[in-house]
C-alpha cells in the first residue's frame, strides 16, 4: 500500500476562475516539501483542498491509498492531516494551556463528554505539559492567547496543530508576521518536528524554505511550474526569472 499523501490531477475552479490546475504531487512520510510561488499563485487554496476546507472540482486526493477527496474536514483531521493558518487562528479568549488541551481532547474523542472535568485526565494533562515544555510555552501557559505577542501566538499555533499528532502537516506561512528577532523560534520548532512526519511548508521567506525543505515545488497561476531539490530550484532559469525578473543575467 502507498503511504503518505498523493494528489492526483487536482483542479479547483471558482466560477470561471481556475485557481488550481491539474496539480499532481506526493508527500511521502518524512517529506519536507516547500510550496513557493508569487502571491495569488493558489498556494493557500491548494492547502485548503488537501485539508478539506475546499472540495476539488476534479481530481483526487489519497491518504495511504484511500480516496479522501469527498471527506469533510473534520474526518480528514481525524485521519491525520492538519494545517496551521496563514493568519493566526487560535482560541483567543482561552489560555495557552487550553489551546493545547482542546486539540488533544478532540484527538482522543473526548469533547462529547459531559461528566468529567476537562483537566481531570492525568494522561492528557501530562501530554499538555510536555507539549508546552517542548515549545517553551510553559511560562505563558496560564496567559490568555489574545495577550501574547504575535511571534508567541505563532508558536501556540504550531503547538496546537502538533497536539493533533498529524502524519501530514501543512504549515501555511508559519513565519508570516513574525519579527525577524523571533523567527528562529519558528525555524527551530520546525526543525524539531518528528522525522517521520510529512510536512508541506507554504512560505515566502526563502531563508526559511532553504533551511528546512529538502524538496521545493514552485506554483504559478495554480499550476506547478517546476519542482526539485533546493539546489535545482535555485539554479532553475524559470524560477530565477520569476523571482529576480527577466533581465537578470
Amino acid at each position: 500500500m502507498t503511504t503518505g499523501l498523493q494528489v492526483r490531477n487536482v483542479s479547483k475552479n471558482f466560477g470561471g476562475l481556475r485557481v488550481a490546475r491539474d496539480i499532481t504531487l506526493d508527500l511521502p512520510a518524512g517529506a519536507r516539501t516547500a510550496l513557493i510561488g508569487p502571491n495569488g499563485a493558489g498556494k493557500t487554496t491548494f492547502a485548503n483542498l488537501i485539508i478539506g476546507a475546499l472540495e476539488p472540482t476534479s481530481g483526487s486526493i489519497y491518504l495511504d491509498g484511500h480516496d479522501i477527496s469527498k471527506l469533510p474536514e473534520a474526518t480528514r483531521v481525524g485521519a491525520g492531516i492538519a494545517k496551521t493558518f496563514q493568519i493566526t487562528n487560535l482560541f483567543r479568549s482561552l489560555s495557552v494551556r487550553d489551546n493545547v488541551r482542546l486539540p488533544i481532547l478532540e484527538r482522543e474523542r473526548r469533547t462529547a463528554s459531559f461528566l468529567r472535568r476537562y483537566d481531570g485526565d492525568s494522561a492528557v494533562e501530562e501530554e499538555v505539559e510536555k507539549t508546552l515544555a517542548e515549545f517553551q510555552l510553559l511560562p505563558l501557559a496560564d496567559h490568555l492567547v489574545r495577550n501574547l505577542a504575535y511571534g508567541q501566538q505563532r508558536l501556540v499555533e504550531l503547538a496546537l496543530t502538533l497536539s493533533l499528532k498529524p502524519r501530514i502537516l501543512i504549515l501555511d506561512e508559519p513565519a508570516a508576521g513574525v519579527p525577524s528577532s523571533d523567527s528562529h523560534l519558528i525555524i527551530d520548532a520546525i526543525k524539531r518536528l518528528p522525522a517521520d512526519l510529512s510536512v508541506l511548508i507554504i512560505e515566502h521567506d526563502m531563508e526559511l524554505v532553504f533551511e528546512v525543505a529538502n524538496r521545493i515545488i514552485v506554483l504559478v497561476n495554480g499550476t506547478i511550474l517546476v519542482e526539485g531539490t533546493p539546489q535545482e530550484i535555485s539554479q532553475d532559469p524559470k524560477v530565477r526569472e520569476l523571482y529576480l525578473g527577466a533581465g537578470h543575467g
Partner: protein
Amino acid sequence: MSANSTIAAARPQIRGAATFLPPIILLAGAFVAFWLFPYDLGFMTRILIMMVFVLSFDLILGYAGIATLGHAAMYGCGAYAAGLFAIHVSADPLLGLAIGAAAGALIALVSGLLLMRAHGLSLLMLSIAVTMVLQETASKARGITGGADGLTGISMGPVLGIFEFDFIGKTAFWYAFCVLFVILLVLRVVVASPFGLALRGIKDSPSRMRAIGTPLYRRKVAAYVLGGAIAGIAGALTAQITSLVSIEAFNFALSAEVMVMLVLGGAGRLYGALIGTLVFMTVHHIAAGIDPFNWLFVIGFMVLAVVFFLPEGLISLPKRLMRLD
C-alpha cells in the same frame, strides 16, 4: 519553596473557594430574601424561574456563541407540555418538570437540526420564525391550548408528595430555588467538562475547531438541545407555579429580554446570568412601580451604560474596580 510551587499549591485552594463560595452565597441570599421580603415571594419566585431560563440561554449564547432570538420557543413548549401533562395525566410537579424538559429538548432538536446550519442574521431570523410558528400553532389549537385565553385549569399536587403549594407562595419559592440550584450545579459540571471547553472553542473560532477535527454541527445541536431542555424546565416551572400558560410564553419580547438580561450580567460565566436577571427584574419592578409608562427608559439607559463601560457585564464590575486602585 519556589514562587512557582507556591502558586501551584495555592491553585487548588483558589479553585476550592471558587467552587463552593458562589453556591453558598446563593443559598444565603435566598434565605435572606425569604425573611426580608415575605410579601414579595411571588415576584422573587418569578426571578428564580427567569434565572433558570437565562442560564439555559447562557449555555447557548455565552458558551457556544450561538446568537438566537427565539429562545422562548423552548420555554413555551415546556410550559404548554407541563401544563397539559398536569391537566390530563399527572399533577406531580417533578414529573411535570421532566415532561417540560423533554418538550424543550425535542423542539430544540427538531428546530436545531435546521437552525444550527445557519449563522448570523439568518440564524436570528430563523429562530424568530420558529417561535412565531409555534405561537401561531398554540393560538390556533384552541381546543388543546386554550388559544389566546391561555391554558387554564392547572392544579399541581404536592412537591415530593409532601409540600403543598400554598397561597403565600412559600413552597413555590423554595421549589423554584431548588430547581435553580440543581440546574446551576449541573451546568457547572457541563461547562467544566471537555464538552464545555469545546463550546468555548466553538465560540472563539469555529474554523479552528473544524481544523482540529470537531464535528461542529453535532456539538452545536447538542448544546442547543441541552439549553432547550433547561428552558423547557423554566417554562414548566412557570406553568406549575402560576397555574396558567399564556400565549405570551412564545412572545418575541421574552426572547429579547433574556438576551438583555444575559448581556447585562455577563455572558459565559453562569453567575453573570443570575446577576443580570436579578438586576433587570428588580429595576424593572421598581421602575415600573414608580412610572408604569416610562420604565423602559431606565432599563435602556442601564443596558447602554453596561455595554459601554462594562462590556463583560456587571459580573466584571469588581475586577474593573480593583484595576482602578
